[in-house]
């Protein structure tokens, strides 16, 4: 930590608050990690596979963001409108969107019903893009909250050790002893029925916040543990000792010495966390406790498709393939990021 000692002379520990910590963190991070960060970026640039899959993810996100454009200008419908009784012209023949015995048409590879219709006669391609917005929103938000909570829990447990650590770590162990999905489904069923009241904030049962919060909480142990480990070793480092010797308080040490050094572990975890969150959203959707109808998400679309697979396998294949592609892109990119930040694994790859 190349830090001007005058800083400490100017702001004594008594003056330190969370606000005072924030600019110090912003100023401290580059000084602390300029070398490693540049190196990591350079390594990532050299990993063409990871970059290609990262780009694929960006393209997928852009496609989902452009969903309204596609719906208005190409498919001329919206994700909720059903076309049950309509007919469209394929190869010069008029065909029912949903046949009389309830079988929806498959992919037409044309503007309308490009990927077919679902059993309510809704355009699968349009729902796929809108569903992607929900899945991605849930995945990214949940991963952000998981990261936030894990850093708080991990940093407190690792920094203060002792009794605090024991309480926090055991709590995490109990959550860990639960099968992730069972916990998710239990919380999901409960919350979708009654909603959630957090003081003045009310979250209604069909809100997207329900799956976001569940996924975020369920994954905290997986991320908080390694962060705690990192903090345990950081707090013994010379620069922390130096700060302590200069009279810095707990908050100051936490915000300007410990937290900036956790950024790489958080960055390494983040893409993989988003991938896992999207997968868990899908599982919750399949079990009926994720995003509530008529809102689409990849999870609920796969769930519906699996239930009705006999009336058209495309109903399950299309959203599933999209989800696999997205999660795969995140996983490969995330691997690349990890290798870039962890030179040891890079050496391993070059063998």
């Amino acid at each position, binding site marked *: 930590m190349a830090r001007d000692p005058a800083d400490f002379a100017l702001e004594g520990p008594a003056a330190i608050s969370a606000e005072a910590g924030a600019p110090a963190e912003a100023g401290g991070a580059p000084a602390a990690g300029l070398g490693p960060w540049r190196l990591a970026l350079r390594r990532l640039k050299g990993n063409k596979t990871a970059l290609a899959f990262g780009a694929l993810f960006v393209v997928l996100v852009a496609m989902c963001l452009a969903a309204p454009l596609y719906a208005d200008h190409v498919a001329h419908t919206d994700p909720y409108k059903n076309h049950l009784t309509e007919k469209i012209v394929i190869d010069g023949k008029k065909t029912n969107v949903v046949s009389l015995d309830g079988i929806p048409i498959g992919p037409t590879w044309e503007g309308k019903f490009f990927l077919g219709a679902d059993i309510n006669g809704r355009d699968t391609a349009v729902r796929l893009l809108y569903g992607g917005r929900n899945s991605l929103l849930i995945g990214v938000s949940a991963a952000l909250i998981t990261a936030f909570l894990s850093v708080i829990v991990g940093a407190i447990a690792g920094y203060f050790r002792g009794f605090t650590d024991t309480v926090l770590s055991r709590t995490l162990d109990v959550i860990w002893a639960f099968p992730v999905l*069972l916990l998710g489904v*239990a919380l999901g069923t409960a919350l979708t029925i*009654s909603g959630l009241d957090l003081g003045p904030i009310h979250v209604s049962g069909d809100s997207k916040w329900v799956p976001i919060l569940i996924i975020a909480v369920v994954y905290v142990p997986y991320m908080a543990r390694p962060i705690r480990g990192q903090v345990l070793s950081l707090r013994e480092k010379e620069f922390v000792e130096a700060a302590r010797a200069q009279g810095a308080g707990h908050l100051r040490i936490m915000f300007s010495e410990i937290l900036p050094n956790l950024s790489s572990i958080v960055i390494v975890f983040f893409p993989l966390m988003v*991938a896992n969150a999207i997968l868990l959203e899908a599982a919750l959707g399949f*079990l009926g406790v994720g995003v509530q109808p008529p809102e689409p998400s990849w999870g609920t679309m796969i769930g519906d498709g699996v239930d009705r*697979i006999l009336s058209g396998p495309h109903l399950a294949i299309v959203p599933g393939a999209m989800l696999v592609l997205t999660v795969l892109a995140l996983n*490969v990119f995330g691997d690349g990021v990890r290798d870039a930040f962890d030179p040891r694994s890079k050496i*391993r790859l070059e063998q």
Partner: protein
Amino acid sequence: MARFAVRRIGQMLVVMFAVSVLTFLIFNVIPGGDPALRMAGKQPDPGQLKIIREEWGFDEPVYVQYEETMKKVFTADLVSYSTQQDVIQEIWRRAPRTFALALGAAILWMVFSIALGVFTAIRAGQFSDRFLTVLALIGISMPVFWIGALMNYYIGFKWGILPNGGYVPITEDPWEWFKHLLMPWAALSILFIGVYSRILRSNVLDTMNDDFVRTARAKGLPERQVFLKHVLRNSLIPIVTLWGLDFGAVLGGGAILTETVFDLQGVGQYAAESVDQLDVPPVLAITMFGAFFIVLLNTVVDILYAALDPRIRLN
């Protein structure tokens, strides 16, 4: 060894207790979760509700309810709120299905992970390594119920190679039992093979550079023995830990999606069905059942550890 066993049993009791409290709390802090309302049917009258509440003890404070329920768990007369079925009996009926699924899948994924992990490590950097690594990543990125449903549809329904879903007890017809479980085993294993083989691959590559491996070579051991006794043995340690956790979770009903998609009617599927009904007693019993297996398998792993790494002693 005795002290180790006592400590482990103590640990198991603590985890099971904590899990049961957490489960109970999840369901009891929820306002919409009032079981009396659901039991009373669509238009409950207040008198009827009162009778149900008194009969089932829902009017008692939460801790009394918890105590009562736990007593029933241990005397095996726990009854489901929604179906009035005997919960322990139902778990008992379904447990063999879950065990069959877990055991077969665990063997399958361990064998394939080791084979794949070792192969890709030896071929590191070559085309076959890259290709298989991508396959492993695809395996990790697939939702199990999705690949399961597609297998069920194509292999089971469309081409009719294997039965699509359901379960036949091994005592009735071992061949049918095997055929019914083949797809669930495969579907469940795919994810684990992806995860494990990647970890094993990087462990093997790491260990190959360790000093003790160089020493083993220097003292003239044949390459085969260096690999099996020194490299592989050490690389397997983290995999064994994971295997214990995951096998325990699947045994304890964690394979909710696989069981549901193939309609195996196992413990996990029972959990999913009960949760859907906000039916506390089965969920409570199943989570404790799951916690029991997780701790049990952790113990097995610790013993395996000591066998793999002589430096580790159980006490």
